[in-house]
């Protein structure tokens, strides 16, 4: 423990603490830009500088550790002058178009300029004029807004271990870019969108489909159908001032109806369907000596990651499509039949917490319906924008259900949005498939929560089924390298690209706070507990789609519409 003084106040704090963390003990949040909890400090922005008595210069409080007897001042005239000037300089080199910027009101540079009292930008000169990187179907990079904080580089390298963006050039030409500046779409970018969450400004955003969706809704010739992922209902309320952890399923459906969609369904229905297919696939592999462990396949960020970095493990990956894509296959076939609508008139829209879903939807093989299965993908943020644009008072909406045909779901379907949810849902059904009996304790606690790799063993009629759950691609490598080395003890592994699972997806309300992601996940477990059906195979709408259309899991129709293939992708 060290005793030191901060702004005249004496405190005793454990050795090894940074000045920034220590200052929180005296109710001071030292202003900063490039520092972000959850990432290694970058000490790039220099805004967090503080005065230490006896030292000639300001010290970066995000990395500087406290020492015995240190006397720190966080709010002197010299410190304030430095912070303001640095923000001024950043603004001078920034494409300032706040009113029309994606991050208006959610921008850390904007916040700093306002809170630090920057009233003018005295530096007047050349602004950057880089080309946008629009090579990815999911994510756009605008180097003209980049403040070179390096957070995106750190999350891509250290957390996701994809490492496709980094600093290039030197001096005034320094920028964040991709290999040979070829663009995200031409390197191993998985489209996970975690870079969007850590970017403090509007330099990284998703490719928007809002205008296209407005256009088809307004087109009387088109019959627009919408599905929404489980993670949406756990976070959408945050965009409307509702407290974090508020379940807004009913309001979500109500808003979608009022936006003008012709049919409002729910991805949770096809989450249940995925469980039927994937559970059956797992049982088949176990019984017939197929390739194990089986790995889930509903995270398109994980799939692209696998195709680039672990294509040798393709045989391990479930052939099941994701719930989004299973839904897409059924909209212009099953639904069009049931509703008597010409499939050529149907436009299939999804609302996803995920930026990689925009990539997934345009994969060439995702057209088993005979048409593009999913035409447009909107992120949670985009949906919120549309609701605001329409002037809908979201927080006051009544609760309304989705249409039952492809919108009724079990608790197993809704927990897909949390890390461990797919695993738990699959075990509830796999147990029945193997033993013929119901799994009594449907809550499988060991696979829940934020640990990087979670493991559990479930006794299925004498067979000890070993499972693992990981979230965040850096954690995924741990179980994947084990499989490669022939040492994996598991039968079934769930991998989600995003830390926290889909509730932390690249399309969710901006936040890198893992505690918030955990809160969102808990919302879904709570919804699960309150629903009439908690197992996918009990869902009446699921029974109906097999009875009326698909016949049986892994059958001919299911295989045609609900299963897919993967492609080895090159490294650059």
């Amino acid at each position: 423990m060290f005793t030191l003084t901060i702004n005249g106040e004496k405190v005793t704090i454990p050795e090894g603490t940074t000045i920034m963390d220590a200052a929180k003990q005296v109710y001071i949040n030292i202003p900063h830009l490039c520092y972000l909890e959850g990432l290694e400090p970058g000490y790039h922005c220099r805004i967090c500088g503080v005065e230490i008595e006896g030292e000639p210069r300001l010290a970066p409080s995000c990395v500087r550790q406290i020492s015995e007897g240190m006397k720190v001042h966080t709010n002197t005239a010299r410190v304030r002058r430095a912070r303001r000037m640095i923000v001024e300089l950043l603004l001078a080199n920034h494409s300032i178009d706040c009113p029309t910027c994606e991050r208006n009101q959610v921008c850390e540079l904007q916040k700093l300029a306002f809170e630090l009292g920057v009233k003018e930008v005295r530096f007047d000169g050349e602004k950057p004029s880089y080309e946008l990187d629009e090579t990815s179907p999911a994510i756009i990079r605008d180097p003209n807004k980049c403040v070179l904080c390096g957070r995106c580089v750190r999350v891509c390298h250290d957390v996701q271990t994809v490492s496709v963006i980094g600093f290039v050039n030197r001096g005034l030409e320094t920028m964040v870019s991709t290999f040979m500046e070829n663009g995200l779409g031409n390197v191993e970018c998985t489209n996970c969108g975690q870079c969007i969450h850590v970017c403090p400004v509007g330099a990284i955003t998703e490719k928007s489909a809002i205008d296209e969706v407005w256009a088809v809704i307004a087109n009387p010739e088109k019959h627009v159908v919408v599905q929404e992922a489980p993670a949406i209902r756990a976070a959408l309320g945050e965009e409307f001032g509702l407290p974090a952890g508020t379940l807004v399923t009913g309001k979500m459906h109500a808003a979608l109806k009022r936006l003008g969609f012709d049919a409002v369904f729910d991805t949770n229905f096809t989450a249940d369907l995925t469980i039927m297919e994937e559970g059956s696939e797992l049982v088949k592999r176990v019984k017939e000596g197929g390739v194990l462990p089986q790995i889930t396949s509903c995270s398109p960020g994980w799939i692209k990651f696998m195709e680039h970095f672990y294509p040798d493990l393709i045989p391990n990956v479930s052939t099941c499509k994701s719930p989004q894509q299973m839904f897409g296959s059924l909209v212009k076939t099953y639904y069009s039949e049931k509703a008597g609508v010409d499939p050529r008139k149907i436009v299939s829209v999804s609302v996803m917490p995920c930026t990689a879903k925009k990539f997934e939807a345009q994969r060439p093989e995702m057209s088993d319906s005979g048409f593009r299965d999913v035409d447009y993908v909107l992120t949670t943020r985009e949906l919120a924008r549309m609701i605001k644009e329409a002037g809908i008072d979201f927080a006051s909406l009544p609760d309304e259900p989705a249409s039952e045909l492809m919108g009724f779901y079990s608790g197993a379907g809704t927990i897909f949005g949390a890390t461990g949810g797919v695993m738990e849902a699959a075990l509830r059904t796999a147990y029945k498939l193997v033993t013929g009996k119901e799994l009594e304790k449907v809550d499988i606690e060991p696979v829940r929560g934020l640990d990087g790799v979670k493991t559990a063993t479930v006794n299925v009629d004498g067979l000890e089924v070993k499972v693992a759950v990981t979230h965040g691609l850096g954690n995924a490598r741990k179980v994947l390298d084990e499989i490669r080395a022939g040492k994996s003890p598991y039968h079934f592994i769930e991998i989600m690209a995003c830390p926290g699972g889909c509730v932390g997806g690249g399309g969710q309300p901006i936040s890198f706070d893992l505690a918030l992601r955990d809160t969102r996940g808990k919302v879904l477990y709570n919804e699960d507990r309150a629903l009439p059906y908690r197992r996918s195979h009990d869902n009446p709408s699921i029974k109906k789609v097999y009875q009326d259309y698909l016949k049986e899991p892994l059958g001919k129709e299911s295989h045609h519409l609900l299963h897919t293939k993967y492609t080895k992708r090159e490294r650059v």
Partner: protein
Amino acid sequence: MSTTSWKTEVDEVIKRRRKSKEALLPCLEAIQEVSSYIPQEAVSYLRENLDVPSIDIYGVITFYGMLTTKEQGKYAIRLCNSLPCDLNSSKEMLKVIEEELDIKAGEISSDKKFTLEVVPCLGLCDKAPAMMINDKIYENLTEETAKKIIAELKG
């Protein structure tokens, strides 16, 4: 400039220095020495052999003034423009050379024979103005000597 020539150099360096990130800069320098620039395939080769992401290798190449992924001219002219040379007519030397080669600093001549760059201090300040062409030093330049040097290389 065949693939095999830089590959041999790289393998040599890795053998001497061990397969690690510390071998990256020596490998890049070896490739540059043989090929006068660093081809994309070379970066992929280094990625595979040193286990360093391509963007990190590219970030290193673009950081250093002497490394490049762009093809260079046969003669890389580096004229110093730091203060001691600037105080000794380096600007005039630049004008002369630009005229002789009909290119501006930062460009490559149409016959791909010359690349011209202004560079910071070469450590030849007592013999200013000075320049280097490839690994040769040319010091105490005058308009006449500069013209003569270029003319000789033009052939």
